[in-house]
């Protein structure tokens, strides 16, 4: 479904140039949920922005369903980390969700209905006439997820989607993603710095290392569905996987407890 081939990106030119991506290869199969995990500032967001067509990578190729894309792909949705800046504060929640649907055709009533359905799916049926800033952070991120759902993308990108919410909300939102993804057989690429989250959510985890970002490892997560916040996380397989991902994220640095 998605193929990223030898993707490189360098910010700036000359001596101050900073290479963020150093030749990344990855692929996501149809209906798969792949988590990309790596330390903060390792270029994860650059990777996502390249796939979304928000920046032009300096080298490499991105293919969706075997078609090379250079601009923003037509049926791609993104859930950004910063929900408060991603939702438009001058529109109601319902209008926020319905706004991108014009492209999908259908009249106003049909778009409204589609938005209402998506909001119901994320448990916010009653919030359509509210404004985003009247909702809590977790609810705002649900709206952003509903907007992506209503858009019916063939590929959903999520950029640290739960990085700005509290732990309880985070677990709820993780389960929401698993639920809607199951329901719509969506293809998802989720970027996170949270090792546990990547294992809990993913069918596969891809680990990046820092500056420039390159793939250092890839793990298949063969944990049973449906996943459960308590039961899944206490499985020996889960514990083992997170240790392995953790080791890959840390790199080969030896354990040095007395150094800052």
């Amino acid at each position, binding site marked *: 479904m998605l193929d990223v081939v030898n993707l490189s990106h360098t910010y700036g030119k000359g001596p101050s140039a900073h290479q963020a991506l150093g030749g990344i290869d990855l692929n996501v199969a149809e209906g798969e949920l792949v988590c990309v995990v790596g330390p903060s500032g390792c270029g994860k967001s650059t990777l996502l*922005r390249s796939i*979304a*067509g*928000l920046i032009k990578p300096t080298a490499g190729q991105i293919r969706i369903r075997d078609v090379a894309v250079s601009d*923003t792909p*037509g049926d*791609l*949705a*993104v859930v*950004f980390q*910063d929900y*408060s*800046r*991603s939702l*438009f*504060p*001058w*529109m109601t929640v319902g209008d926020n969700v319905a*706004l*991108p649907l*014009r*492209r999908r055709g259908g009249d106003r009533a049909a778009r409204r209905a589609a938005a209402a359905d998506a909001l119901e799916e994320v448990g916010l049926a009653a919030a359509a006439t509210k*404004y985003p*800033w*009247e909702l809590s952070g977790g609810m705002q991120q649900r709206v952003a997820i509903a*907007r992506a759902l209503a*858009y019916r993308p063939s590929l959903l990108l999520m950029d640290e989607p739960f990085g700005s919410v509290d732990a309880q909300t985070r677990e709820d939102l993780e389960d929401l993603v698993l639920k809607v993804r199951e329901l719509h057989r969506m293809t998802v690429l989720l970027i996170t710095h949270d090792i546990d989250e990547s294992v809990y959510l993913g069918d596969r985890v891809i680990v990046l290392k820092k500056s420039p970002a390159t793939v250092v490892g890839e793990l298949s997560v063969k944990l049973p569905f449906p996943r459960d916040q308590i039961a899944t996380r206490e499985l020996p397989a889960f514990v083992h996987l997170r240790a392995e991902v953790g080791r890959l994220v840390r790199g080969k640095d030896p354990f040095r407890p007395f150094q800052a």
Partner: protein
Amino acid sequence: MTTTTSRAGRHAAESGTEGGRRGLLGVLEQMWLIPLVLVAWELGARQGDSIYFPPPTTIVTHMYELWFSGPASHLFLTEEAVDNLPPSVGRLLAGWAIAGVIGVGLGIALGRSKALSGYIDPILEFARAIPPPALIPLFIVLFKLGTQMQLATIVYGVIWPILVNTVDGARHVDRVHADTAQVFGLGRRQRLFRIILPAAAPKIFAGLRLSLSLAVILMVVSELVGATDGLGYLILFKQQSFDLAGMWGAMVLLSILGFVLNASFLFVERRVLSWHRRAQQTT
């Protein structure tokens, strides 16, 4: 420019949340000085007994006789009021509206296109530096003496705050908002009307409000030069015919006009930008 709006907004929100009683008291608290000043003025003017400084009661009675004692069919306006008030207000609003349309349109274009603003910005900086009244002689030559020249003066004078604020607002659309618009493939029209304009609206309104008070000033200035009607003309005419109470009256009319315009504008702004005010309160 932005501080004025946000302060006004906050103020409105405060009186809104603290209930009507507190709001009324607040108004009284702010208003007590006005009657005091009027009484002092009245006493001072009577004491001084100068024809140049008639007491307020004389001015008000004179205003009534001159302009507000007309027939009911004319909303009690006299002929002199009908001849001078509507043309003034009309030119003011028309000039302001024209400047608004041009200023917002051009401002959005300049704010969204680096290439365009690169070419045009320096020219604008020079044009902006000319005090608008200095252009009146040019406008008199270019346009007919009268409405055209007055409109040109008002438009030229009031367009800058609108233009500068719109450019600023359009240029600083939040990056995540812009990214979201691009990712979800919003069309040009949707981007303009649903994203850029609303995002820039708080700045645009700040500019429009400044321009509105500038428009009053330029309306008067343009009417002081070779006009045959309007409030500015009236002030000059009353002065020249030694009707000093009438001259003062026209000035009072002007201040009432300015007050009403500003209050109406704030009323509209408060409604249009209510999302902005309330969103800022929650974050």
